């Protein structure tokens, strides 16, 4: 349903999106991951026809977005970042306006409004002014707008941003359910969401796709991690001993002092975290250290995300 090829976007001298390609089929839910400023929103704005790409191709439902935007936009539902709304309208009239722009009139329009009000649990605020709604309701109102014409393609920019845990859960289930017969792209930086709702995920960093695969495939790309807290010797010397273990890729130290070391031990790819944990345990008992904590994480998405996106905040 969505085919994006070699998408580039430059703002002045800054390249926001640099050669992004992906495609999404019907029945697929694609998670769009990346640190802030990686180019997620810019990419989505280009796919929805808001921004014009510097170069590249976008086809939605077989229609070229650049050559025939009005036609291509027809099959897309879009939830922009921050869920913008006309603050002077009521929920019902806002949805009516969106339905009309989507070409729904008369009875079809009223039916569509009723349907999305029900799907998004908005019936109770139908006649309330958008101004007076809480953030969760505002978000759902904008979400309702995106599915009012029952589109084949849904593009959601951070659909769970600012929702409480119950609402997040609800939206995730909604995405999953609709993903069965639509092509959905949604961006997030909450990684558990990707595991919960996506059939595929793309990680994008500094405008480039750096990983593409199912959540399970992506997990295998990362280093497993062993978290340790050891007491009984100076932090520095404990760290030096652990580093000698064969199969330790890198150590991210946490809180260390004269009598304790804590940190995260990254396991070399291909080695099992269980083996390394056993070795650390052996080392500790040999040295008469007290092992306060030993915890293994088998390739979490977080780790992969952190290891392959070099965010500006990283030291």
């Amino acid at each position, binding site marked *: 349903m969505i085919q994006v090829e070699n998408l580039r976007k430059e703002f002045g001298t800054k390249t926001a999106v640099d050669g992004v390609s992906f495609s999404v089929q019907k029945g697929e839910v694609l998670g769009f991951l990346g640190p802030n400023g990686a180019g997620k929103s810019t990419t989505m704005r280009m796919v929805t026809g*808001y921004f014009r790409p510097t170069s590249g191709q976008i086809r939605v439902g077989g229609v070229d977005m650049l050559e025939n935007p009005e036609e291509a936009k*027809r099959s897309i539902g879009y939830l*922009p970042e921050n869920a*913008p709304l006309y603050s002077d309208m009521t929920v019902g009239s806002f949805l009516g306006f969106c339905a009309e*722009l989507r070409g729904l009139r008369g009875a079809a329009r009223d039916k569509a409004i009723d349907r999305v009000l029900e799907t998004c649990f908005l019936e109770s605020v139908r006649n309330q002014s958008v101004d007076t709604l809480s953030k969760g309701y505002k978000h759902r109102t904008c979400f309702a707008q995106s599915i009012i014409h029952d589109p084949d393609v849904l593009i959601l920019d951070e659909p769970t941003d600012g929702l409480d845990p119950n609402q997040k859960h609800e939206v995730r289930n909604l995405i999953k359910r609709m993903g069965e017969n639509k092509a959905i792209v949604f961006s997030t930086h909450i990684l558990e969401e990707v595991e919960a709702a996506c059939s595929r995920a793309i990680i994008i960093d500094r405008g480039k796709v750096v990983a593409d695969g199912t959540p399970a495939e992506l997990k295998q790309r990362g280093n497993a991690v062993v978290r340790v807290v050891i007491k009984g010797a100076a932090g520095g010397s404990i760290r030096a001993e652990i580093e000698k273990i064969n199969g330790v890729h890198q150590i991210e130290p946490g809180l260390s002092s004269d009598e304790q070391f804590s940190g995260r031990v990254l396991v070399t790819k291909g080695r099992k975290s269980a083996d390394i944990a056993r070795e650390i345990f052996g080392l500790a008992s040999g040295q008469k250290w007290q092992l306060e904590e030993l915890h293994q994480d088998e390739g979490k998405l977080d780790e992969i995300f952190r290891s392959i996106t070099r965010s500006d905040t990283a030291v």
Partner: protein
Amino acid sequence: MNSKDIQSIWSVFKREFLAYFNSPVLYVIVVIFLLASQGFAFLFGRFLESDNASLTQSFFFWHPWIYIVLAPAVGMRLWSEEQRLGTIELLMTMPISPWHAIIGKFKAAALVWLIALLLTFPIVLTVFYLGSPDRGPILTGYIASYLYALGCLSVTSAVSAFTRSQVVCFIVSVAVCILLTLIGYPGIIDWFVKSLPASLEGGVRFVGYLSFMDHFYEMSKGVFVFRDVLYFLSVIAAGLMLTGLALRSKRA
């Protein structure tokens, strides 16, 4: 233009006009316009003292000065608000052409002015009651006045597409409207013609010809010339075109 285009424009127009209607803007503007236009006519225009059954000097004469301030006040929300709220992203990803939105919004603001102008009817009744005025100048006066308002509105529409701040839009629009009005003000043109070398007179007259005032004056005196109407229609078209370009450059 097929029926789908008309429906898209109608939807945008309806939303925009209801936004005016549901906010104090419409009422405040209309009331101030009525107070100002009637007040100027009676106080400065010497509507009664002049003993002349005509609205040209006493009533329409003041309209440009009112529009300079009030038209930007009506138009400043057109695109600035859309950008501030971020709803422009919704509007521009709908399956409609940007022109539908531009025209629909402009028409809504234009209707606000039509209402305001029609509500000045008591002064027309008065002049008919007191004397027997020439109908032509009154009709062309109203048309000229409305076109003037739309000219200022189209300028405001273009400026509002450039900024997300209504205040900036208002100030810049007022400045542009003042400029477009003053460059054609007879006194100012005469001053320039006198103080500049004679060879430049043609240039000054030409610049003056581009101003709103020049065309407004002719029409409000009852000289209904097609080229003056055409002038205002081109100003409106240019304003809307510039709006479209500005919106496109924001998305480019």
